[in-house]
């Protein structure tokens, strides 16, 4: 028997062992309803929630309370203004405080006085802008009538990116990155705590299969799950929420796989520290929540305070989010996200090394 043939003989059962472990662990995953919830349903729920929070308001008509007779509102477009009236200013201001209106308006001769809502600052600012534009329009009409033949400037608003940047375009990659992060971190931490309790790994160490084969099968299940999660999520986002997928969308797969390695490594460190399932879940939350908040996944980093922007560099979710956004939404080629890939890989390697060094196999 040659050396190669001998090696083949050893390798063949290892491949079989990998397959049977992969099958056993995969089956267990599919039958665990809490896993399905955390990896698939929870991110979708977040998408519904955030899309409705960020997606409403900007197209709806501003709710204006007219106090007394406000002549300028006579020319108002019903698409932009929903006008109600109040007997006096105090009543109108009370409505603003309750959030029942975006702005109150009083016309005192030539002066149109606007009271934007402080309760709903964004709605108030939009209402204020629209009312100013309305006043300008009325002025232009009056002036044109007074000086016919004089050229008047007009504005025409077009949406940037041809209207592509609906909130969903911005939110989907962030929520996906977050979903991948929680299933990786919670999954790995929970698994290790389970192994501490039921000693499955200890039992498997006493079979002919090696620990490496078993861990390989476990990680493979997680990677397949991450790909499935990404596919389902992007499909739902595209079909139900109108996410426009670029031609480079397929490159989300390697990005998500790389991210999963980083998040699994974090989960292994947590699983090494925690002794019970609640402790593992609590610690996982403690790590993933801040990581998500400073990553720009739910709120644009450019609009965040400077310290959040600085902290974001330490969050692997930032890089996954940016990279997903670039290739899936903006259709940039993979070469454009090489820096993000580099950071993610470095992060995965570093945390992986920490988890390897701090892990106590004796506890399993």
């Amino acid at each position, binding site marked *: 028997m040659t050396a190669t043939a001998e090696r083949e003989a050893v390798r063949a059962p290892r491949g079989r062992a990998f397959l049977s*472990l992969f099958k056993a662990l995969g089956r267990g995953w599919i039958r*665990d309803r809490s896993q399905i919830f955390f990896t698939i349903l929870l991110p979708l729920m977040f998408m519904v929630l955030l899309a409705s929070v960020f997606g409403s308001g900007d197209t709806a008509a501003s709710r204006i309370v007219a106090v007394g007779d406000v002549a300028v509102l006579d020319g108002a477009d019903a698409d932009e203004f929903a006008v109600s009236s109040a007997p006096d200013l105090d009543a109108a201001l009370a409505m603003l405080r309750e959030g029942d209106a975006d702005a109150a308006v009083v016309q005192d001769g030539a002066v149109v006085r606007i009271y934007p809502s402080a309760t709903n600052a964004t709605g108030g600012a939009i209402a204020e802008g629209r009312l100013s534009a309305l006043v300008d329009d009325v002025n232009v009409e009056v002036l044109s009538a007074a000086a016919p033949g004089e050229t008047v400037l007009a504005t025409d608003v077009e949406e940037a990116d041809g209207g592509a940047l609906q909130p969903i375009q911005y939110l989907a990659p962030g929520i996906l990155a977050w979903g991948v992060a929680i299933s990786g971190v919670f999954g790995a931490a929970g698994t290790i705590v389970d192994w501490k309790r*039921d*000693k499955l790994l200890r039992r498997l160490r006493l079979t*002919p299969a*090696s620990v490496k084969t078993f861990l390989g099968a476990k990680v493979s299940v997680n990677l397949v799950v991450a790909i499935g999660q990404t596919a389902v999520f992007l499909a739902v986002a595209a079909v139900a929420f109108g996410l426009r997928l670029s031609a480079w969308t397929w490159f989300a797969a390697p990005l998500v796989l790389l991210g999963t390695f980083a998040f699994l490594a974090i989960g292994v460190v947590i699983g090494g520290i925690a002794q019970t399932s609640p402790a593992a879940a609590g610690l996982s939350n403690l790590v993933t929540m801040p990581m998500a908040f400073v990553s720009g996944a739910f709120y644009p980093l450019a609009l965040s305070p400077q310290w959040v922007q600085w902290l974001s560099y330490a969050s692997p979710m930032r890089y996954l989010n940016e990279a997903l956004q670039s290739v899936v939404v903006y259709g940039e080629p993979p070469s454009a996200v090489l820096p993000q890939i580099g950071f993610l890989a470095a992060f995965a390697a570093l945390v992986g090394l920490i988890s390897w060094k701090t892990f106590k196999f004796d506890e399993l």
Partner: protein
Amino acid sequence: MDAAIEVADLRKTYRGRRTGEVRAVDGVSFRVERGEFFGILGPNGAGKTTTLEIVEGLRRPDSGEVRLLGRSPWPHSPDLTRRLGVQLQASAFFEFLTAREQIETFAELYGATKARAAEMLETVGLAEHAAVRCEKLSGGQQQRLSIACALVGDPELVFLDEPTAALDPQARRNLWDLMRAINAEGRTVVLTTHYMEEAEALCDRVAIMDAGRVKAVDSPAGFIRKLDAPTRVTIASGQLTDERIAELASGETVTGGDGTVVFETRDPRKLLTALASDGALEGLAVRTANLEDVFLHVTGREWRG
């Protein structure tokens, strides 16, 4: 032929933050012959499980030597583990799998067939529960499945770590039959237990462990013989006069109270014949020395299993 297990002077100390230094295993040596049913008996915390884990190759001792079927358990070698069957204290199962899927997975790891897996389920009496998820099985059923998984690879040497702990008496007796059958097939069995009667009923030889040391190794009968303890014969009081009791005792100890008379005798046959001819057998109980007395004798401490 090598012995099934040779263990020489194992030592293992744990350093805990709160507990300080604990010498879990403190110079343990023993030898198990092939085909033997060997018991490691001791109270909780005696170091049984740690010893077993070192022997199996799960833990490395601080010092000492282990030979399993003539080889060292370190490093992990598929050629050796293929010949071992292990049942751990915790029921180590893949989550959410049925009994059949569970044992078939283990069968694949050992290179055994599905037919063998089904046969083992049958052997441990779980064929009817093959489609039940592991977490839904009762404690006794889980232990039996765990033993079936240990046997699926047709091992020469089987380790059973307190398989009957936390089982009801009936389930425990059922497992005893199973363990006897495993040994009768020619497999070497190593069993840890903190049940005296279990070691007595099953084991060819027993190592009595206490505080990390093996105090003595012998067969249960050999231990009791060496103890040379009297047989205690109890009858209800009021059947015999004090004179007759003193006569029957013939110089040996008699105690009483609580409505009973207790004779301690080295010739139980003669005493029992005399009691029978006197018609004084009401409330009769005969108790010979057992491993509990042996434990007291060997360790100088009362059994607190």
